[in-house]
């Protein structure tokens, strides 16, 4: 090895050492906000909440909640930093909680700008709407449950797997807001007797403003129409004509639907968009609370179920049309099949869809009746 190479190595080492370490931050020196919540107070001033884990042996409580009143989202970091032991970091945000008051504003989505602009921030926080002031849920800290961000995240994950709510990440929401043929849909959480519960989904309009809420069953139906069901889905429907005996709802039947096929036909007739949806599903009876001889009169039950399911779908569509939104994404079909007509109305697609004719026809086939007669 000659002298020149040694010189080169020495110089390179010095340069490397000088250049290094500029943005180093050890994990334990950071305070990780796992949950961020937006809310407005009575004077319509922005309140920002955060929940972060505490990594200290001698501290009883495992999380720390902060509440600041910044003017912007980015500014909140500095304010929160002044309260925390470590450097306040938003790199591991799991959940973005939005209060109803925030969702009632038209342009709240602008607050999230910093998360898209600064690439160190994650784009995967789950977006969850909360019906009420956030202080109720943030400071709840139930002792028999994991910390709030983990609890909410896991709730969304598991319920999403059963199609009972949706998993909308920040990036997903961004895409849904930017896309003209679809309106956003996010998870919804409520407090019921001081218990945190997922109640279904919140529908937003084109600008991200609150439009309506769906319960779990409606969410399942919506996801069927979105062709976005995972595994099989559970539905419980009443069968008219059956008696309700005592305090129990003995007129109900529970279904387990899989192999759901949805066909959506799009056309444009008489200045109106026409959508024909054909839904075929194979259902298995998982619960039947009234006596019924499925073996011999299966056809009859099938028809009754079909009728009920179809009614549920129609109600859902009516609801959507009254709200002038399009969470199903029918705009995408319109864009694909009737582009010229869609192009004219894309900026007020919700209103257009409200006037569109949407027909649903459902076909259910009882594929299984369980292991009892």
């Amino acid at each position, binding site marked *: *090895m000659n*002298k020149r190479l*040694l010189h080169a190595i020495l110089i390179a080492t010095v340069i*490397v*050492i000088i*250049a*290094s*370490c500029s*943005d*180093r*931050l*050890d*994990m*334990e020196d*950071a305070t*990780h906000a*796992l949950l961020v919540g937006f809310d407005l107070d009575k004077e319509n001033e922005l309140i920002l909440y955060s929940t972060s*884990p505490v*990594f*200290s*042996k001698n501290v009883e409580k495992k999380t720390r909640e902060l509440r600041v009143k910044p003017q912007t989202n980015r500014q909140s970091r500095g304010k929160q930093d002044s309260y925390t032991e470590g450097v306040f970091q938003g*790199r*591991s945000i*799991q959940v973005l909680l939005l209060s109803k008051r925030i969702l009632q504003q038209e342009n709240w989505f602008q607050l999230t700008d910093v998360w898209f602009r600064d690439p*160190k921030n*994650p784009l995967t926080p789950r977006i969850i709407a909360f019906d009420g002031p956030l202080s109720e849920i943030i400071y709840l800290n139930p002792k028999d449950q994991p910390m709030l*961000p*983990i609890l909410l*995240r896991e709730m969304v994950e598991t319920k999403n797997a059963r199609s009972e709510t949706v998993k909308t990440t920040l990036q997903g929401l961004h895409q849904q807001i930017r896309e003209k043929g679809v309106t956003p849909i996010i998870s919804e959480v409520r407090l019921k007797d001081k218990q945190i519960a997922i109640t279904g989904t919140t529908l937003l309009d084109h600008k991200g403003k609150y439009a309506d809420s769906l319960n779990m069953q409606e969410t399942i139906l919506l996801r069927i129409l979105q062709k976005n069901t995972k595994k099989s889905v559970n539905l419980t429907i009443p069968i008219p004509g059956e008696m309700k005996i005592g305090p129990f709802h003995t007129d109900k039947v529970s279904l387990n639907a899989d192999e759901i096929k949805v066909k959506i036909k799009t056309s444009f007739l008489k200045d109106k968009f026409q959508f024909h949806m054909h839904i075929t599903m194979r259902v298995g009876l998982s619960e039947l609370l009234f006596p019924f001889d499925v073996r011999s009169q299966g056809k009859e039950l099938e028809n009754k179920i079909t009728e009920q399911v179809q009614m549920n779908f129609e109600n859902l569509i009516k609801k959507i049309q009254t709200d002038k939104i399009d969470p199903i994404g029918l705009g995408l079909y319109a864009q694909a099949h009737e582009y010229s007509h869609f192009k004219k109305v894309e900026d007020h697609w919700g209103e257009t869809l409200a006037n569109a004719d949407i027909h649903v026809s459902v076909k259910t086939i009882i594929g299984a009746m369980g292991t009892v007669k």
Partner: protein
Amino acid sequence: MLFSNWFGRKKYRSVPEQINQPPSDTISASLAQNITYLHSQFCQTPDLVVRHFMIKQSGDQAALVYLSGLIDKNAINNNVLRPLQFETGSGNSEYGFTINVGQINPLLSWPQIESAILHGSSILFVGGRTEVYALGTQGWPQRAIEDPQIEASLKGAHQGFVETGSQNIALIRRYIQNRELKIIELTVGRRGNSLVSILYLADVAHPEVLKELQDRIQQLDVDVIINTGELAELIEDNPFSPFPQFITTERPDAAASQILQGRFAVVVDRSPSVLIAPVAFMSFFQNIDDYSTRWSIATFIRLLRILAFFVAVFLPAFYIAVISFNFEIIPVKLLLTIGEFRGRVPFPPFVEAILMEVTLEMMREAGVRLPAPVGQTVGIVGGIVIGQAIVQAGLISNIMVIVVAFTAIASFILPNYDMVAAVRLIRFGMMIAASMFGIVGIIIGLMTMIGHLIALESLGTPYSTPFAPVRFADWKDTFVRLPLWKMGKRPLGTRATQSQRQGSNRPKGDGK
């Protein structure tokens, strides 16, 4: 420059010849004169035995000279002294006496005599003759052939090389009974005269590579080669690389299989390991057992080893990078767990990792040299210190212990000790890079390593051969090990001149 003394080429200064030369190299006809001269040459050599006697057949005075430790006493007593002293006969043999020794070399000069004595021959001086006879009565202390120690094998042979070069050659010859197996003998070292033999298949190995190897060995100017490792260091292409460029094996079956692939085996007398050259990076991941286990399992183990290589090199570095720079990629539940442990540790991750890795290396090194019963104690003490006390004391986090343990296990999987040593060294470099630049640092380290591997050569043949240059045909025996009947050709990386190894002849039993 300060460093030039360290790395300077002047490793060996020429030393003036120390022996006073005899008036001439030739041997005198006078026995007494010869013995006197011999004594003057070998003064202070108590193990030199000079036995005077009379040859019964011819009546000549004679002397038998040898170094007592290097000869076989039985052979001297029964096969040399007995026939010469007691047997009468016509004496019409070639040399005028009868002797029961297989190898008799007439020698004419003093340097030859000296060298023969030092190599364990016994020398017969006969009065009145100007030639002496070197008798092949060598019998130095020897070890029995045992199971190889560092390259233990489950299914392979259980014979390992020993310290006698000729026996090692015999062990290889047992696998390749072919006259194309040629041996080139070279003598290296001014003082030690190490016998170095190059074994190769003349019709397969590439002559250019052979010439290169031969040249390098011939140009050596050293006192002595004690061990094969020294030879490897002296002749390897890039001595500053952390990667070994030759395999040293102690398994005859491994050596034979390498020779059959067109490589060269260098047997150094007195060293129980044999040098294999040229080799490629992937050769260090192959093991003789791979070819005797079923191919699917062998493939799985290959993949495991490659994974282990990356784990052993990068895992601690990755830990540092993730904890110090990019903790957002940790899944949140793991983040909470790690955070809980890390919160107690007073050191930054780099110090933590270095501390732990150095401890591990120390324990490993301690275990190597210690006798087995004490070695166990090291293991127990180490296990308790590392596994429990250090975590309970809050010096090191649990996760780091897992990382270190996993790294250690991963490095034990690699079948070649030299490559493991390289991995151990590179790991520290990667850790430093990671502590300075995070994941970018690891990538820089990886790129540097790949670049270096591509540039590296072993005996002038590319080191990273099936990948750079790309030789798809050789990939059959890299990440995967395809069935033997799919590998009908010798690897291109060895530059074998005859590539056909065997046909696709997998017998199907009843001839269907």
